[in-house]
């Protein structure tokens, strides 16, 4: 169990480090992530949580986990739709970058871990990861993606998404108490 927690924290820390290291502290006005790259990170980060929810829907029998997973699936799909529509409207093609790739690599390992669990062990692993994942994504959105967005509408979308992510985190922490 400790291995999962350690991995989750390590994966999320990697995500933050990747994002923060892409910020040039000596010249903060020069963004390292372009808007097409931010669009790619936004869609990917949301899609990963949808994928985790789909695994939970397949593997869990717990009502609270299933309810939470459905909310994640619906909300993150709604954000993806908004991001894709905005990108289309702005004529921006989301551009895969090192942060997107890092997210995908981390998700691949986490999906493998989740798929290897069942019962209570799965529920705990899923909700622990949801808490850690939302904490890291909130940090990245607040400290990197919003400050680095150049387009006002893209920045506006990220600002709008933030309260949703914070509510998800609060909800995840509430469910997590069940599995302590």
């Amino acid at each position: 169990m400790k291995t999962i927690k350690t991995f989750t924290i390590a994966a999320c820390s990697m995500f933050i480090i990747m994002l923060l290291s892409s910020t040039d502290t000596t010249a903060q006005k020069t963004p390292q992530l372009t808007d097409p790259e931010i669009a790619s990170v936004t869609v990917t980060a949301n899609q990963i949580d949808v994928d985790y929810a789909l695994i939970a829907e397949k593997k869990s029998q717990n009502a609270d986990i299933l309810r939470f997973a459905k909310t994640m699936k619906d909300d993150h799909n709604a954000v993806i739709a908004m991001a894709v529509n905005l990108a289309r409207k702005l004529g921006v093609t989301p551009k895969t970058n090192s942060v997107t790739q890092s997210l995908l690599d981390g998700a691949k390992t986490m999906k493998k871990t989740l798929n290897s669990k069942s019962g209570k062990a799965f529920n705990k692993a899923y909700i622990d990861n949801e808490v850690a994942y939302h904490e890291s994504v909130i940090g990245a959105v607040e400290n990197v993606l919003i400050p680095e967005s150049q387009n006002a509408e893209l920045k506006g979308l990220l600002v709008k998404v933030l309260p949703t992510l914070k509510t998800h985190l609060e909800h995840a922490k509430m469910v997590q108490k069940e599995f302590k």
Partner: protein
Amino acid sequence: MTQRLIKWSSAGAVIACLLFGSCNTSSSNAVKPKTDTVVIDQMKFTPAVVTINKGDTVLFINNDIVAHNATEVNKTWASPTLNNGDSWKIVPDKSAGYFCSIHIVMTGKIVVKEE
């Protein structure tokens, strides 16, 4: 002819009211039911507490980017799922706390004033 009769009888009623005071004491003193709006935005019900008189309507409008609902804590009433731009109204007969069953940390309260 009929129209003239209606006009005269209306005029008579107005004069009678002026001479003898209030025509319909109960309805003129009663507070007209009103509608209070609760806006759902940024994962919050605003205002979080709405105080109404019995018979008033509470209108929920979802302006948020994700779907929500309003569900009474004991589930005696619940709105359908409200997508962005959807609204739903209720005339609550008693005070109640409510929450969004999709995002269970979102809560609000309706206080119905006793007459």
